[in-house]
Every structure is written in C-alpha cells, then in structure tokens.
C-alpha cells in the first residue's frame, strides 16, 4: 500500500488570458521520482511551482500531505516546511556565507539553536561534498558548487518532497555531473522527487515515471522504459527525436 503525498486534480491556471495549465491531473506516491520534460512554455515549471504555492492556481485542487493548498497562509507555511525547492538560478542569498545560507531557515523557521543549525548545515555540506566552502560567499563559488549549496540549503529543512526546477540548465557542461550525482544519491536514499529537466540520462537512471508536457497539458505519462522506447503520442516522439539526436 503506497502512500500518496501529492495530488493534483483538474488544476487550471491562467496568466491573464493565457491558459498555462489545463486540467492537470497528477498523483505522486511517497518515494516516487518523477521527471517532467517538454518544450519551453509548456507549463512544467509552473506546475511544480504551484505545488509549494510560489504560483497560485485558479481552478482545481492541489493536496500535499493531506493538506489542501488554498489562500490560507498557515497551510502554505506548513507545506513549504515539508517541500524543498531547487531553482535554475540557484537563488542563494549573496549577502550570507554558505553556512549562513543553509542554517538560516532552520534557525528562523524551526527555531533551532544556532549551534545545532550550523552542525546540521555542516553535515549537509559534507553530503554535497563541499564542507571546505562553508565560510565563503556564494559569489566566490562555481555554478556547480552553488547549486549543491542550494540543494543542501533545501535539505537542511528536512523536507519529505524535493522539487527541482531545471537544476542544471544554468550550468556549464562539466559542472552538470557533480550536481546530478548529488541528486542521484538523494534519489537512492528514497526522497520523493519531482524534477523538471532535459537531462535524459539522469531521467533514465532515476525516474519511476516520465511526464511529457506541451501547451499546458500532460501529453504523456509513462515509465521511462515505455516513454523512451515506445512513446504513444506524435508530439512526444518529435520532442524526443529533437533532444536525443542533436
């Protein structure tokens, strides 16, 4: 019996007249790894940003850990504490040291004593293999190191679910691997993950489910095996042929 941690039912969202999400249905089980791909503007980022309410949906229902996302700020805070997010542009806090970046949320959101929070921060820095950078500022690190700090920052809140919004798209090719390695390790430890990415190698290694989105709809949802070897829709075939054979 698997436990459902995220449910989206008939979710619709508009930016003014532009219909970004159309009748999205999705359910995610605990420990599942879902990779979402699709052309730009297809609504993949918007969809995962709705799950921690960085964007509000207008119709339908989003339930995370049994809590429905509404305008109720208490529910939003509750969900954000348990859902970590990693961004394309890292979004580290440039005025804080690496250690302060990671320990900030445990101190202020979880009201943890500073010493304990810094110990936790160090343990996550070791997990992403850059403990020696703790005293530096984000601007002094490479892109790959910054993204690993961003992952450590999210993990320090001990979330059950991690959302990744194109985590390697802003990185130089030689830095992509170091970030993906951390994500693979995280997947092996059983974290529930939703990953928007075009790294198909990563998808094949890690994903339980592949989702292909286009024009605001989920066009195809299948196991990686099915998805890569026997895609159903023509749109998926076209997309795959373009990104796999360049």
């Amino acid at each position, binding site marked *: 019996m698997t436990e459902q941690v995220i449910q989206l039912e008939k979710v619709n969202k508009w930016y003014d007249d532009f219909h970004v999400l159309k009748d999205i249905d999705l359910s995610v089980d605990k420990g599942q790894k879902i990779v979402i791909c699709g052309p730009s503007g297809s609504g993949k980022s918007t969809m995962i940003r709705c799950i*921690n309410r*960085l964007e509000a949906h207008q119709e339908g229902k989003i339930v995370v850990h049994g809590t429905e996302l509404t305008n109720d700020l208490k529910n939003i*805070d509750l969900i*954000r*504490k348990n*859902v*970590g*997010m990693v*961004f394309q*542009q890292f*979004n*580290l*806090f*440039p*005025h804080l040291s690496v250690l302060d970046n990671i320990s*900030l*949320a445990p101190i*202020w*959101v979880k009201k943890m004593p500073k010493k304990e929070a810094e110990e936790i921060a160090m343990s996550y820095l070791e997990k992403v293999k850059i403990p020696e950078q703790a005293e530096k*500022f*984000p*601007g*002094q690190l490479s892109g790959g190191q910054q993204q690993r700090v*961003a992952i450590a*920052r*999210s993990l320090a*809140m001990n979330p059950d679910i991690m959302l990744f919004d194109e985590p390697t798209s802003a990185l130089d090719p030689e830095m992509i691997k170091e970030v993906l390695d951390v994500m693979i390790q995280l997947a092996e430890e059983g974290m529930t993950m939703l990953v928007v990415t075009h790294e198909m190698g990563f998808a094949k290694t890690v994903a339980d489910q592949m989702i292909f989105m286009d024009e605001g709809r989920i066009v195809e949802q299948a196991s990686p095996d099915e998805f890569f070897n026997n895609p159903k829709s023509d749109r998926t075939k076209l997309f795959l042929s373009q990104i796999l054979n360049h």
Partner: protein
Amino acid sequence: MSSSISFTHNKYYSWCRNNLFSSWINGIITILSIYFIYEVSSFFLNWTIFEADFVNNFRGEKITDRTFCSKNIEPGQHGACWAIIIVRFHQFIYGFYPVEEAWRVNLVYGLLPFALVGIFFDNLPFRKYFIYFTFLFPFIGYFLLYGGAGLDVVGTSKWGGLLVTLFLGVTGILLAFPLSIILALGRRSKMPVIKTICIIFIEFIRGVPLITLLFTANVMLPLFLPEGVRPDNLLRALVAVTLFQSAYMAEAIRGGLQAIPKGQLEAAQSLGLTYWQSTRKIILPQALKISIPPIVNTCIGLFKDTSLVLIIGLFDLLGVGRAAVADIDWAKLHYEVYVFISLVFFIFCFGMSRYSLYLEKKLKTDNS
C-alpha cells in the same frame, strides 16, 4: 653611466613622462595647469593662513571689532580676519545657549560618537551595549540639552549654530530612516490601501519644496492643533525635515528593492520563511546595500538643506553666520564667515561620503 640608466628607469620619471609630458601639447598644458594651481593655492593659503589675523592683528593688538582687523588698518594687508569667528565662536557652536551651561552641549557632542558607533561598525566588541546606548541616547541627549529634573531648562529658542544644524540633520536622518523603510515596503505592498497611502505621501512630500514644508509646519500646524497646543518651533522644523527626508530616502530604498531578483524572495519563501522574515533577513540587507550611494546622497542633501530653517526664524549655523555679518561691529567680513561655514558643512558631508565608501567596500561579498 649607470646612474643615468637607473634614472631613466625610475618609475616616477616614467610615470611623469607617460602621464604629464607625453607630447608637446600635453607638456604645455601640464605646465600651465601647475602654474594655475600654484597661483590659486598660494592666494588661498596666504589669505586663510599666512597673512590672516587670528586673535591679534599685525600690530599685536587684540582684535575686538572690525576696525582692528589688519586689512582695515593697512591697505597693504589682505589676509582674512578670523577674529570674527573666534570672538563669536560660542554663538557659532551653541547659538544663544547660556555660556555656563555649554558643558551640557559639549557632553552631548562627546556622547554622540558612542551612540553612533554601534550602528556604523558591526564588528565592534560589546556592540550590543553600544546599541542599547543608541536607543537611550535620544532621551539622555534631550534631557541634557533641554534640562529639567535638576538641570536648568534651556528653551529651544536659545539653541543655535552648529547645535541646531546637527540636531536637525542627525535626528532628522535617524528618524527618517525607519520611516523610509516602511514607506518603501508599503509602496511595493500588494495591499491596495497601504500602497495608495504610501504613494500619496511620498509623491506629495517630494512634489513640494522643503521651504514650503517648513512654512507649513511652522504656520499651519498650530491651526490644525487644538487651542493652546503650540509645539516648539524647533520640533516643528524637525517634523518637516524628517518627513521630507523619509520621502526621498524611501525612493532610494525602493530603487534597491527593485534591483533584488524575484528569485531571492521565492527561495526564502520556499524555505518556509514568512514575509517579514524574508524581508528582514534576505531582501532588506541586500536592498539597503545597493541603496547606500543614493541614501547617503539624500543624507548629504538634507544636512545642507537644514540651513533653510533660518527663514522660519531658527538660527542654525548659517543663520548665526548671517547675524554675525549683519553686526555693525563686524560688518563686511562675509568671506571669513561663509568660508568658515562652508568648511564646517564640508567636513560633515565629506565624512558621510567617506563612510558610505567604507560601507560599500566592507559589504562586498563577491570577487568582482
């Protein structure tokens, strides 16, 4: 032989050669410029120092009014007559504050650095206690300056000179700072009522000259208040100055807020930080850092603008200077007075400008 080689390779020589005498035209311009600088500075130094009178004139007599100034005795003498400043020094610094009570003002001046140092330098040992003192200082300062509870009361109508300038400048800037942060955040708020109030306030204050605000505060304010309530003149000016400064500073800070990428707030929110936590810990520290140059710019502007209060009858540094020039005993010594006042203003404004550079350098966290 070896000496001539080392001479041509001397780095000062090559610097001069490259920067000052790289061509005939540049050489001529350099020589003319040096001559010009020499003429101007020698004239200025002679006037201010070498040929100037301080306490005594060239005959060794103590100067007690303008007729004793060297330049008024001997046509060949041109130096400044600083005696006007020295004789009236008390007025320039304290206004009409009683001489025997001036120690109170000096004590406030002496304590002021201790009150500011905690705000200005965050790596100070025992900073916490300095900050406590900063919050206590306005009360201590007011008690010392105004009096009461054992000290003789010195009404603000007797305050003047640098005391008024510093009181309005420093207090105005310090009070305006928190107000301006609230206004800047309010102007970007999603709540329409708060946003509208902040926009109207900022645009109204910015759209009106400071002189008008001072007049309004001075003349109109009592009309709106109940009969018998007549707020102090200096206090009215302080209100006007604070509101004026807060509107300008709010716009400087808003510029900084707009420069922060949206991702910063999103990252803070995704970690579960509330709006106020994100604002205080993530957004404001970065926005204020970016806003340092324009904030200091408005502070310098305000510090100089405090001299406008002389039109509502307050004697700030400039007001005292004008009174000195108007005194028949000392008439026609405009240059001395205005040069002195300029120097005092310059010291404070230059200090603010240097501090802002120090702060920018210290807050830099990247390699660029």
